[in-house]
Every structure is written in C-alpha cells, then in structure tokens.
C-alpha cells in the first residue's frame, strides 16, 4: 500500500488529543504538539479536542492524503480503548494500519498526575518515544484463523441456562457443564421472585427442562472443567465427569431405589435445603431436578465406601439396571471456540459475625433458610416454624450481613434489600407475625422495585434504620423473656432500641465462590481485589474478559439479581455468537519470525515456547516458527543469543528507539 518509505523518507503525522479536559486539563497539549513538530520526519503535528470523533479521524485521513503521510502517531487514551479505532482510520486513509502507533497520555499520565509541568514533560517523553519507534514500523497483514462454532457454558444456574438456551436456539452446539448433580443453581431454591412475586419454580423449571431436551445442548451435570488449552476459536477443554453411580440414560426418576435403601431413615444433611432436612445416601437433589435422576453420595453410600452392602437399591431398580457401582471418574475432551463462565456466587457465612448469634441461637436463621421454609416443596411444606415447632409471633430481618461492612465485605450485595422485603411480605402472607426490617439504606433501584418497597410499607412491615449492634437472649424486661432481643441504634429516632422478636432472619450477602481463584487461573481470567471475575471494561465490555473468547455472565462478575443476570447471560451469548458468525478470528500480527541467515540452530528457543510453535528444520538445521501456533509473547525473541528471532510489532529496534525516546527528553 505504501511505497514511500522504500526510498527512506519517513513522513510522520502527530496528533495529540485533548479528550475534552481529561488530558488538556493537566497536559499542555499545544506545547507538546509544538515540541514534536520540530522532530525530524514529523510533517504535521496537531492538537485536537477529540481525536476519536469522526472529525478527528477525518483529520488523519485528510492529512494522509494532503501531506502524503506514511506514519501516524496519536497521543490520547489507552491502546486497549482506541488503538483499533485509529488503525481503522489510518487504513481508510489509504495506509497500512500498522504504520500507526498510539501514545497513552490519559490513563498513564493526565489521570494519574497533578503537576502540569511534570505531566507535560512526561507526555513529551512518551510522544517522542512513539515518534522514534514508528519510523521502524513495517506494513503487516492480519491473519485469519477459523473458529470452532461450538460453545462451552460453565455453570448451570439461571445465567448459564439462559446463555446456553439462547445460543442453542440460534443453532449453536452448546456444552453445559454443572458441578452439582442438577442444574438450577441458587434460583431453584427460591419460592417466589421479586418484585412480581411470581413463583420461581414456574419460571425456572421450564427453562431447565428445555436445556435437557434441546437437541443442540449437551448437558453434563456432576462434572467439572479441569483443563483448558488453546485460544479463542480453538479451545480444548477437559471435563471431569464424576461418577454418580447411576446411568443417567436408564434412570427414569421413579425414586424406588431411595425407598429401598438400607438406610431406613434419611440421616444426612440435605444440601439443597441448607441442611434443614435429611436425605439418604441415594437421593435426588430436589423434586424438579434436571436431569431428573438420582445420585449416590460416595461419602455416605455403604457400597461405595466399603463394598459391603445388601444393595437393596439395585433390587428395587430391577431390570432397568440404572444403578451402576462400576462407574469410574471419566475425563472427556471437547473442542469449542468460545467459553461462557457463569459460576455464580456463594453466600456469606453468617457465623463470621458472631454478635448476631447465628449458630448460637436456634431461631436466628439466614434468608435462604427462610426461603426454604416458605417454599411449599421445602422441609416444612411451606410453614414458617421455629425450632420448637411454634409459629413466630414476631420476626426481625437484619440487612447488610456481610455487605457494606468494613470488617467483612465492603460491597453492596444489591439483592438483599429486595430479597428481605419479599420474604417479609411472604412471612406476612404465611403467618400473622409482626415483621420489622432493620436496614442501613433501602436500595430498590430496579424497575418496579421502589413500588415494591411502598407495598411493603403499606402491608404494615416496620422499618427501623440502623445497623444492628447485637442479638442477645438476655432479657432486661418482662416482655423480653424467652425472646431474642435486637439491640440497635435507631438513627432516625436518635436513640438505642431493644426490640424483642421470636425469630431473626439474617440477609446474608454474596461472595465470590470459594474456588474463584482456581477457576480464574483455569480460564486465564483476572479477578478484582474482592475476587469477582474482572470484565474487560466496566462499561463498554461488561461481559468480555481479557482473554478473547472467554465471557462472563451473572454473579461470578459481581452481585446481581435475576433480571440483571439474564441480561448479562444474553449479552455474553450475543458476544460469543458475534465471533462465531463472523466465521474467523482476526489475529494481531505480533508473531515471531526467524531470520534464517542469522540462525545458528542452537535450539535454545525451542524449549522456551509454551505453544511448541518452534521446531528445528531437519533440512536447514535452523529453527522455524509455525505462525499459526505462535501467540506473540516474544519470550523466544528475548532469549535468542544471535538475535535471529524477531517479533512483528515489537522489533528490537522499535523497543530500543522507544527507550531512547523516553530518555532523550530532558
């Protein structure tokens, strides 16, 4: 495209962006432009209010035409934001897009420094480095790699379910991997959902069965991803399928085996009911579980543990022969092009705040436990009962347990206000108890949420503003006898209150999953300091990660409610499908290459490459690089003793000139 540099003449255009006042407020942009204008090879040097705007880009194109520019440098924001924009502008102006270099003077300069003189000096140094470097740029072509159209969704909660069905409906083949024996996630435990109070099961279970029956979805429950290799478009994923000792295809979900188990009574804590009920070693996670098949707990089953059991379950299963004690853990390898992570959250452990008495007083429960109580399919069949079997006459809700708290978690879990108000309304519906909600602020910012708060007030639910100091059973007045007393400073009334109640519900907040760090490493993602998976951009790329082809949806990215989780899941599905339907992956041409004449065939580069892209050519006895495998890290380039490996976009002379550039400005 460009021939002028063949005769050695470099014609550089330099543009410094004010970014409104974002840059110009701290950096003296015109003075930087004047300074750069004097450097050799610089033909035009301009400052402009918004370089990324249409007129800003047009300025570049016009100068390329009029001044016959063959290099362009823009000093503005981070390349992760607008490098693509300016490369496109340069290309549409008739130059190879790789004759462009970007200088980051916003994120790395004006936003982090306050002294105008120093920030301007730094902007000059950085700009000068780019001017020195851009001389060495060469025309490069992006390469295209094919993309595998299949997708992996990790996590079968509402986000994973929605992402999987969205893509499957569009005709994509989806693998849905869930760690638990059933999909459904946290939402499956809910009775009703705010603010409409529609039944959670009624809206979730049809989606769950749709997953199982969808011809485009391969559902693997009781399975975990253990290894991920490859890159966008071509991931190889190893999934560990744990033995459930039941053949999923043969089991019809009649549950006769559970009846027949040698354990006559259920005696093990039922995880789904938060331990409020018991189950047997052979069990079904919950009535509407998908797949609707039983599972055997290897830690509890006599046969699995000792091999000495009458195996009455086998007899009950009879000729269906679904129970299979010979099942072994299986590793399955699948190939996908994109991955959506929807691994959800874990609830805050209320025992970490001992002054609220969870675990000490039997009638202090968590919100999710109350959720199981009010569910008709729950351990009490929908009745709200205290541990002594009586119905509570008064219930207190304590909000922000493990949220907005400097001692535990600083973030707002976003759902607990609404969740508590929903439960408060359900308590009023199920019992005639007085309900008091102890809150710091009521956060009801969604559609129909404020109205829901109004409804709660109208239904006679009391609201007391103040962070609860402690829960105690120490009665100081006759009406407190036999009750739990909530001590709180009522910050609206301005005095300390003691409120006796029968039952206390702790609105526990959300936390990242316990193994979020391992999962993050597995998929090469980043975590914020709190442990939530980090999105590529908090506003513009909320479901993308720094690894192309890996997307995040739902609460693994941060606390959110069901509508937000579904919106994110849909967005992640759309992002993945945008890549798939494009049909190819455009690869940044930053690969390494060998200058054969200089290579001595010493082979020191070969073991360094993590992608096994380098090998020794038998005929020439020189190293050769498989460009399709090279990911452009440059580790081999730095190690080559003869300097015969080079890297596109990061050539030695480009970096040396950058070093010289940042240091030559005094």
């Amino acid at each position: 495209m460009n021939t002028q540099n063949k005769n050695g003449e470099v014609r550089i255009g330099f543009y410094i962006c004010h970014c409104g006042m974002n840059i110009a407020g701290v950096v003296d942009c015109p003075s930087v432009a004047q300074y750069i204008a004097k450097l050799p090879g610089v033909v035009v040097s301009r400052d402009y209010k918004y370089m990324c705007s249409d007129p800003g880009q047009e300025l570049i194109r016009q100068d390329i035409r009029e001044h016959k520019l063959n290099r362009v440098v823009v000093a503005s924001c981070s390349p992760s934001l607008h490098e693509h924009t300016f490369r496109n502008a340069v290309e549409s102006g008739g130059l190879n897009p790789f004759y462009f270099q970007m200088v980051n003077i916003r994120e790395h300069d004006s936003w982090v420094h306050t002294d105008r003189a120093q920030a301007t000096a730094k902007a000059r140094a950085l700009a000068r480095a780019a001017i020195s470097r851009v001389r060495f740029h060469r025309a490069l072509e992006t390469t295209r790699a094919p993309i595998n159209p299949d997708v992996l969704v990790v996590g079968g909660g509402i986000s994973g379910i929605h992402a999987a069905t969205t893509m499957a409906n569009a005709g994509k083949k989806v693998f849905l991997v869930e760690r638990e024996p059933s999909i459904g996630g946290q939402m499956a435990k809910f009775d009703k959902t705010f603010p409409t109070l529609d039944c959670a099961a009624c809206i979730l279970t049809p989606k769950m069965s749709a997953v199982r029956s969808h011809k485009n979805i391969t559902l693997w429950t009781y399975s975990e991803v253990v290894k991920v290799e490859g890159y966008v478009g071509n991931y190889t994923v190893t999934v560990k399928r744990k033995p459930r000792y039941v053949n999923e295809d043969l089991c019809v979900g009649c549950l006769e085996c559970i009846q027949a188990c040698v354990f006559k009574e259920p005696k093990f804590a039922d995880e789904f009911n938060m331990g409020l009920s018991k189950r047997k070693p052979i069990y079904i996670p919950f009535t509407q579980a998908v797949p609707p098949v039983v599972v055997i707990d290897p830690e509890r089953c006599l046969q699995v543990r000792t091999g000495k059991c009458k195996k009455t379950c086998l007899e009950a299963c009879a000729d269906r022969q679904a129970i299979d004690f010979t099942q072994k853990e299986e590793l399955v390898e699948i190939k996908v092009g994109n991955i959506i992570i929807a691994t959800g959250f874990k609830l805050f452990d209320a025992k970490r705040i001992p002054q609220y008495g969870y675990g000490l007083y039997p009638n202090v429960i968590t919100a999710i436990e109350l959720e199981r109580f009010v569910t008709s399919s729950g351990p009490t069949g929908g009745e709200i009962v205290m541990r002594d079997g009586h119905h509570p006459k008064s219930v207190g809700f304590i909000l922000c347990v493990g949220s907005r708290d400097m001692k535990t978690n600083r973030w707002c879990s976003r759902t607990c206000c609404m969740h508590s108000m929903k439960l408060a309304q359900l308590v009023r519906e199920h019992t005639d108890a007085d309900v008091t909600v102890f809150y710091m602020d009521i956060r009801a910012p969604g559609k129909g949420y404020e109205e829901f708060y109004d409804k709660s007030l109208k239904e006679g639910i009391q609201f007391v503003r103040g962070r609860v100091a402690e829960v105690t059973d120490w009665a100081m007045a006759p009406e407190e006898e036999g009750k739990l007393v909530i001590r709180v400073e009522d910050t609206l009334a301005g005095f300390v209150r003691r409120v006796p109640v029968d039952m206390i519900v702790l609105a526990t907040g959300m936390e990242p999953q316990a193994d979020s760090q391992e999962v993050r490493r597995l998929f090469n993602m980043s975590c914020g300091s709190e442990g939530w998976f980090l999105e590529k951009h908090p506003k513009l790329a909320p479901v993308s990660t720094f690894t192309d082809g890996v997307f995040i949806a739902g609460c693994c990215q941060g606390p959110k409610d069901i509508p937000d989780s579904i919106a994110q899941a849909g967005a992640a599905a759309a992002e993945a499908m945008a890549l798939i339907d494009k049909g190819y992956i455009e690869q940044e041409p930053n690969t390494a290459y060998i200058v054969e004449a200089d290579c001595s065939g010493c082979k020191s580069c070969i073991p360094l490459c993590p992608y096994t892209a380098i090998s020794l050519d038998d005929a020439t006895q020189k190293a050769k690089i498989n460009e399709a495998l090279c990911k452009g890290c440059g580790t081999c380039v730095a190690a080559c003793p003869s300097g015969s490996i080079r890297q596109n976009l990061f050539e030695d002379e480009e970096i040396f000139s950058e070093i010289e550039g940042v240091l030559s400005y005094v």
Partner: protein
Amino acid sequence: MSDPNWQPRIVAFFCNWCTYTAADLAGVSRIKYASNACVIRLMCSGRVDPQFILDALAKGADGVLIGGCHPGDCHYGEGNYKTMRRFQMLRRLLRDMGIEDQRVRLEWISASEGERVKTVINDMVEQVRALGPLNLPQHRAEWDGEMTSSTEPAGQPAEQEAAHA
C-alpha cells in the same frame, strides 16, 4: 546530586495483560502517583531482553522497572517464569557493575492491582531518589577515557595475569 531540580528517570517495561492494564486501571480510578516512570508496553514480561534494561541504564535511566503477571497468572502460561530466571542472572551482572538492587526491580502486578502500581512506582522513585543519579552515560565516557589513556601501560599486567593463568 548537586542539582536540586534533579528528578529520577525510570523506564518501565509492562506486560500488556496484567501490569499495563493495572496502570490503565490506576488511571481510570484516578490514583495519583509520581510521574517519573515512562511505560513501554510489551506483550509479555518474557519479551524483556536483558539488553533493554542495560540499554535503558546506558542511555541515562536512573532505574528500570519490569512489571509482569503474578506467577501462575501469565497470559502465555509461563513467560513471567522466564523473566524471573533471566532477572536473577542479570541482577548478578548489575551488582558486579556496582548498580544497586533498588534501581532495577521486577514486580508482579495483576490487572486488578491499580493501587499497587502507585505503591510500587512511588516506592521505587523514592528509593532511586535517595540513591541519586546513576549517570551511566557520563561514567561510560569516563571509563572509555581511562581505557584509552591506559592502553599502553595496561598491556604488561594483563600479560602477567595471562602467564599466571
């Protein structure tokens, strides 16, 4: 050192995926830190050729900072381990040259650690400021001068050493 306006000059090599992004995050979060470090972006800290560090010092840098992903977090799997290994080797060489450890640092800063960018840069700037200018270009000129002026008399001891060896 006599110049009261002297400011340390630090060249920083940041990997694209963790540390450069962390510096971007520091910007987005408007975290303020010393303006003495200029960042050169590389795809991976594994691309940092020891020559880049020596070249930066030789061209007048008072310090060099290399930023990469935490061990185990490298976008390319293990580039940062290679950096770590090379860095240990280079450190010995730098010590032999009389260059203090505080002047050349390798730091792991993940994409979410915007605050750490500030801490590391501020800390390093202060340490280098305390050490004073490195002035390697000037020293090199002096050393070159010594070499030229001592070429003839230096011939003998060198031969003697060779004989002993």
